[in-house]
């Protein structure tokens, strides 16, 4: 049982490779995922290894990608779609929400729709418009979908396989700013349950929760806080729908204070839902109201302004200070 130091993109690549090898009904489909290996190289080498009948370059049509994936799932395949960038999910939004999310229910269980939709998302890469979005909330809000976001290469490797094995539609949001960050991956490790949230750093005074790229920001904030004498507990959500609240509740019972951080705009966000649920489930433990640190409620700005827009460790710590002041 050895561990390798792999980048997130490579870890997901290996997870996809294993899934393709383990089940010949698994298909990859998306724009430029074949010989090019995907614009982020997440599917690199897979077309060469598995061929064009398993790794399909599709026409440039997101609704078409999702809609045909649905038809393929009806035929018994397990399609894994790649939507090239977060901002381009919207042409496919109707097929995802009106069809994919509802088909299991519409069939009253007669058919299964094991479609995975992989979406590189989030900012911090200096990209142009529509290439830095965080649209998770729309999908977490839609019944019938499962929504995941790995923060680490280990989770990237195991969670993509779990998503593919799930018989339900899964939205798989990959934090693109972390694609090249390396981390330990043990391919033989017992996978953590797909929807479990996890404490990744223990602390006693404030709990901070986030997902995807935000998790490393939270760890950075916790390290700074430790120097200042404040002990912060960091939780990686991992799953946005359903959310595993138990570790968060347990943590808040201990610390009495919660800060939720996300790149996405805060208004009507996943963070809002967590705040409301924790207020309900851990009310008597709260020494302070649940605070949210989010992107501003404005369209994602041009890249020169993204550092001002996106929450960083300082913005997280500002909220931590406010929570402690209660």
């Amino acid at each position, binding site marked *: 049982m050895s561990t390798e130091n792999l980048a997130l993109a490579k870890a997901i690549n290996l997870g996809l490779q294993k899934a393709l090898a383990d089940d010949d009904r698994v298909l990859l489909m998306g724009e430029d995922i074949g010989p090019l290996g995907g614009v982020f190289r997440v599917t690199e080498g897979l077309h060469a290894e598995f061929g064009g009948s398993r790794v399909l370059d599709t026409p440039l049509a997101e609704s078409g990608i999702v809609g045909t994936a649905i038809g393929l799932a009806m035929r018994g395949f397990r399609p894994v779609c790649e939507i090239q960038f977060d901002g381009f999910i919207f042409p496919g939004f109707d097929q995802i929400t009106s069809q994919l999310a509802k088909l299991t229910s519409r069939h009253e269980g007669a058919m299964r729709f094991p479609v995975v939709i992989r979406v590189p998302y989030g900012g911090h890469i200096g990209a142009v418009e529509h290439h830095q979005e965080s649209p998770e909330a729309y999908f977490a809000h839609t019944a019938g979908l499962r929504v995941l976001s790995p923060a680490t290469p280990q989770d990237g490797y195991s969670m993509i396989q779990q998503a593919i094995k799930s018989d339900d539609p899964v939205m798989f949001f990959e934090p693109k700013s972390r694609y090249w960050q390396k981390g330990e991956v043990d391919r033989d490790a017992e996978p953590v349950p797909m929807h479990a949230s996890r404490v990744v750093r223990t602390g006693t005074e404030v709990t901070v929760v986030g997902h995807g790229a935000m998790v490393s920001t939270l760890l950075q904030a916790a390290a700074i806080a430790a120097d200042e004498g404040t002990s912060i507990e960091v939780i990686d959500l991992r799953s946005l729908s359903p959310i595993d609240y138990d570790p968060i509740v347990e943590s808040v019972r201990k610390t*009495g204070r919660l800060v939720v951080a996300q790149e996405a705009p805060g208004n009507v966000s996943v963070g809002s839902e967590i705040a409301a649920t924790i207020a309900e489930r851990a*009310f*008597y*433990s*709260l*020494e302070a109201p649940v605070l949210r640190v989010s992107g501003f409620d404005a369209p994602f700005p041009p890249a020169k302004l993204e550092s001002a827009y996106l929450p960083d460790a300082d913005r997280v710590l500002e909220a931590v200070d406010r929570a402690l002041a*209660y």
Partner: protein
Amino acid sequence: MAVSEFPLPDVGEGLTEAEIVHWKVKPGDAVAVNQVLVEIETAKSLVELPSPFAGTVAELLVEEGATVEVGRPIIRVDSTAGSIELQAPGDEEAHGSITDATDPRPRHGAAPAAEAPDAAAASSEPGSGESSDEGGGAVLVGYGSKGGHASRRRRPSAAEKSAAAAVAAGSAGGAGGAAAAGAGSAGSASAPAGQSAHAAPVRPASVPAASAVPIIAKPPIRKLAKDLGVDLTTVTPTGLVGEVTRDDVIREATQASVFRNIQTPEWGEEREERIPVKGVRKAIATAMVTSAFTAPHVSVFSDVNATRTMEFVKRLKASPDFAGVRISPLLIMAKAVIWAVQRNPTVNSTWTDKEIVVHHYVNLGIAAATPRGLIVPNIKDAQNLSLLELAQALEQLTITARDGKTQPAEMSKGTVTITNLGSYGMDTGTPILNPGEVGIVALGAIKQKPWVIDGEVRPAFVTTVGASFDHRVVDGDVASRFTADIASVLEEPALLLD
């Protein structure tokens, strides 16, 4: 034969009414299923309605030109066997659904045809709540002008309401209990048949003026109060922003448990219980007798607005200099007593038959209740202590006494004593002098009470300063001035800066 009624359907996904434009049949006409009966005009279009029944037209219930709401019957037909009954949404009485008694057609798989009104309620499985609004098997799909279904919330009967109010107002449990258990039989208004006697949601009685001020308490403190059975409206808040703190709740709770009886225990079988007189009890008795029957006691009382003391205490608690030390009104009272003693020296003295020894130091005794009885440890040379040192000394004294570790030396040579009756919940009292002393001050409970401020009655933190004196040494004027001095400090702690 049966009489069937045709309620106006919602023909266009959410229409609420229609106008009868033209009847195509008249009473006496034979009609077949699907034969056009009438032309109606809706908000969307002109529509022909086909007959759901076969039979003979008995009566046209609405005239041409009239607008009728969805769900209202528009025609009555004497229908032959094989016709169906239609019920309007929310039509619990199921009027107009008189069925053919011989028709065994099942409705909802529930009651037989003759009990059509009950069929509307049918099964109690989840979801039948919706169907019960639409009636039995043959129903209007649209909801018509009634919109969603009527509320199913149980309205308490008049008897239950008055019982609930009685319970909420804290009146004798008996009345509330009886009404709650009586399923409405207690009152004149009877509860609807078949309803269980579970209590209607009780709303609290009107909030008294004194707690019109909102209670600020963080969720964990609220939970603590709930768990300890403490009513937050009775707790004196001492927090930074006026909130109830954990200490406030615990203090209230421990007071209640120590100084308020919770239960009425049974006497036991013997007619008399005999407790031997010994130890602390014997010592207390001796001291009390000595004191009470040697020194002629006189007591005076003064009510004072102690709001500024409460505010001062709050500020001290917030001060980093006083962090970690218990701060309470007793501290201010202690300082007040020391100050008042310096202005009224004879109160701080000892009577011997030959002479009165006036002490130029204050060994401040604090009466402390312990599980074994009353003891009075004192703080030596309290006049030399700073406010912080005095606070620390008070805290230490309390802890030591509670732990049962007070040494005899600590209990001797006191010069004047404070007894904190307020911590027992009492407003004031007539304390007995500690032997060897001529003055003892009682700190009463500090509560919100009406007080006249600038000519208006307003709530203020009010307390009674009570004190007893040995009249051999202290006459009424000294007693009064001394007591007034203490009261004036409580009213204005800044006097201590003197």
